[in-house]
């Protein structure tokens, strides 16, 4: 069930909130846990059992790790930690990476040795596996004093606002709130505001601009001119940002409505002036995960320059792979490794000194990197990148005439998206927060979004009309 669906907004959420607030403080974790299971089961009736199993296993392991730690049995602690990591990552590998692995093994060995499993990816497994790992690792490293009760852990992990698409919340961020939280009316109101704005970001910006990117894909990459290729790349850049940012905002909003402080996942990433800065602003909780649980345990930057570069490489190859089981994601991750390393060692200072240059650098880099991310077929990716730099292998069928039409049709949308990708909406929100104007803005964007969703639901081919 998507947050941006009628069922969620008008059925699940109101019913859930009524139940949630009818039950006194202590029972709320149970309501939230049950509600989240229902939420998940609607989308994943079978794999909900996998999630439940994972919760039980991880909680058990965390308790074992904690007790070993307390009694000073480092061997036992290491055993439990390793085995639970193997289990968690094994499940993730099986569901997410096995076919990719099998395909490449077979290709390498040149025979059908490893069978493909064709398993469907359980919803949100990439996110909740990371949360489980962070929890057990934190217990083991001593970052969490008290592993909490089973219900607290289960609630933390399954909590529906962040279950499917993050942010990757750490247990220690919410442990106090899990134990005891109060929701005040202003908190609830802020949460609702943020939810409305997130919804608008997803429905009114991301979904709208996705039409253009779909159109470019429909035309076929070999027939587009260079400006159209850039326009398509920008459209996708906006689409992925407003989609993901919107989802994260909705998660934050929903969390706040229930008394949780869910961490921020984006701080205006497209205004970054280097790739390094970009990754401090884009999907913050993922970057944090890799830093705290991969980079630093590997030794971080304390073991010399070569070792550091090695660690950065591992982090970025894994970051790429986390986004999807395909070579283009690996390429994308390694691309960022190259950029980050080069920025760190060669031209980082230059970027800092030259504002205009660094902005241009990022505004070229961002769309290009998203194309590497989005186009999974490597030969198609090559075609697209060539179109972007103006090497056309086939006749250009979509040139200036269409470009002008697209600009007329989508120009305003691009302008709004560009404006919303700057600091502007954040500053405006800060200024208007809690004022009557905010109420009006939220009301308007909420109903506009609902109208758009309804249009899409009544006519599923709104975005794909023939």
């Amino acid at each position, binding site marked *: 069930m998507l947050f941006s669906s009628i069922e969620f907004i*008008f059925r699940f959420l109101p019913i859930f909130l009524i139940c949630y607030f009818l039950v006194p403080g202590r029972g709320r974790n149970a309501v939230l846990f049950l509600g989240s299971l229902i939420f998940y089961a609607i989308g994943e009736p079978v794999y909900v059992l996998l999630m439940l199993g994972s919760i039980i296993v991880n909680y058990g392991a965390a308790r074992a790790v904690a007790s070993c730690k307390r009694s000073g049995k480092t061997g036992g602690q290491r055993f439990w930690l390793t085995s639970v990591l193997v289990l968690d990552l094994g499940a993730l590998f099986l569901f997410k990476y096995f076919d990719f692995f099998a395909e490449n093994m077979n290709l390498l060995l040149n025979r059908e040795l490893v069978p493909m499993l064709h398993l469907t990816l359980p919803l949100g497994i990439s996110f909740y596996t990371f949360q489980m790992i962070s929890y057990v690792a934190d217990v083991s490293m001593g970052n969490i004093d008290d592993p909490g009760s089973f219900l607290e852990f289960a609630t933390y992990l399954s909590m529906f606002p962040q279950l499917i698409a993050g942010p990757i919340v750490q247990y220690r961020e919410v442990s106090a709130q899990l134990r005891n939280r109060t929701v*005040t*009316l*202003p908190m*609830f*109101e802020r949460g*609702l*505001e943020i939810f*409305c704005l997130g919804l608008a970001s997803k429905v009114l910006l991301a979904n709208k601009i996705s039409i253009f990117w*779909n159109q470019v*894909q*429909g*035309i*076929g990459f*070999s*027939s*587009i001119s260079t400006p159209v290729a850039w326009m398509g790349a920008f459209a996708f850049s906006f689409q992925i940002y407003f989609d993901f940012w919107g989802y994260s905002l909705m998660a934050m909003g929903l969390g706040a409505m229930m008394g949780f402080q869910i961490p921020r996942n984006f701080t205006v990433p497209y205004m970054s002036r280097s790739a390094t800065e970009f990754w401090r602003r884009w999907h913050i909780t993922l970057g944090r995960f890799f830093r705290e649980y991969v980079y630093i345990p590997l030794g971080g930057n304390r073991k010399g320059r070569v070792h550091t570069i090695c660690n950065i490489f591992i982090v970025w190859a894994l970051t790429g792979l986390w986004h999807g089981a395909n070579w283009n994601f690996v390429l994308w991750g390694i691309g960022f490794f190259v950029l980050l390393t080069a920025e760190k060692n060669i031209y980082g200072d230059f970027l800092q000194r030259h504002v205009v240059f660094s902005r241009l650098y990022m505004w070229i880099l961002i769309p290009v990197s998203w194309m590497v991310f989005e186009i999974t077929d490597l030969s198609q990716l090559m075609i697209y990148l060539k179109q972007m730099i103006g090497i056309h292998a*086939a*006749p250009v*069928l*979509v040139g200036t005439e*269409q470009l002008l039409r697209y600009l007329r049709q989508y120009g305003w949308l691009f302008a709004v998206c560009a404006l919303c990708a700057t600091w502007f909406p954040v500053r405006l929100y800060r200024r208007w927060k809690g004022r*009557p104007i*905010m*109420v009006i803005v*939220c*009301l308007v964007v*909420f*109903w506009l979004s609902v109208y758009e969703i309804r249009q899409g639901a009544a006519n599923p*081919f709104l975005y*794909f*009309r*023939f």
Partner: protein
Amino acid sequence: MKRLKKIIKACPLAVCLLCSWGVVAAAEHLPQVIQETDTSQEQEDTTADWITDDTQELVSNDSIDGTIGSNRAPDLSEQAIMEADGHESSQEDLVSSEETNDRMPGETDGQNTAGSGTKQKKIKPKYITYEKKQTDSPWYTDPGKIPLTTEYDYQKVKNDYFDDAVFIGDSRIVGMHDYSGLTNATFFSKTGLTIYNLLDEKFVEDPKTGKDVTVSDMLQNYQYGKIYLMVGINELGTGGTERFKEAYKDVLDKMRKWQPDAVIYVQSIMGVSPKKDRTDDVFNNTNIRDKNCAIANLTDGIHIFYLNIQEIYEDENHALKQDLTFDDVHLYAQYYDKWVKYLKNHAVVKGE
């Protein structure tokens, strides 16, 4: 009361949302009641479609056994038949020339408008048949056959043939307009166009006045030599095949009346990719074939010709080849020129 005031003061957005939700829900409730009675009627309609479709099936089945194509023209349909031969058992290979009693209302066989003075014989399209599958849909039944391009002595023509041609249709025609490079023809095309709104929606700019007018206005005010139609995919889930056929017939009748000298090409509704075919219970190739059979039956080989555009792009199962499309419905831009080439090879040239 005091508490309520406190809530309103602290949570104006929540209160406003709740109130507006109430208003919207109330406003929606009323038309819904009316709609419910409407849909129950519509359901009756579709059941009626079922019945007529079934009887039609019986008729066509009879004719399959009865006749085998007589005067074949050496065109692509031969190839399509041969292709079918390779894949299906001999029992299913029958190629039928259908002789049903469908006739255009308001049109008689004796009417001579095609230039020559003599009475012409109607040519109905032939079919490739295949084994029917059981279907469970209010929108279609499996016709068990695919209509082929009308057999006719087509000429090869150059681009200027399309100087006085008009293309009318949905997004597939929009694609042709955008990407085929055919610039001398006229296009009345719009994404989402259906046979039900084709004549009456104002989306064409009148070249003289610059105002938005309907296709119906255009066809009454300007004369064209050729009319190419492709429409029908959007309405696959609106009304059954019989209703679609009635609407299509009505459009063709009007076109014949307004454009007595034009050659009308009914282009097959192009199929969807195997992926879509497998997963969609409305937008699938069986439904499309059912509709294509219906509209192919409206053609006469005198004024109205059926073109099986599908055959340019189809795979061995007569579905749109998967690698020609991104969204399973539309062609990549680079493949539209094949279509134009096909039309150039299948031109009706009259008045010799």
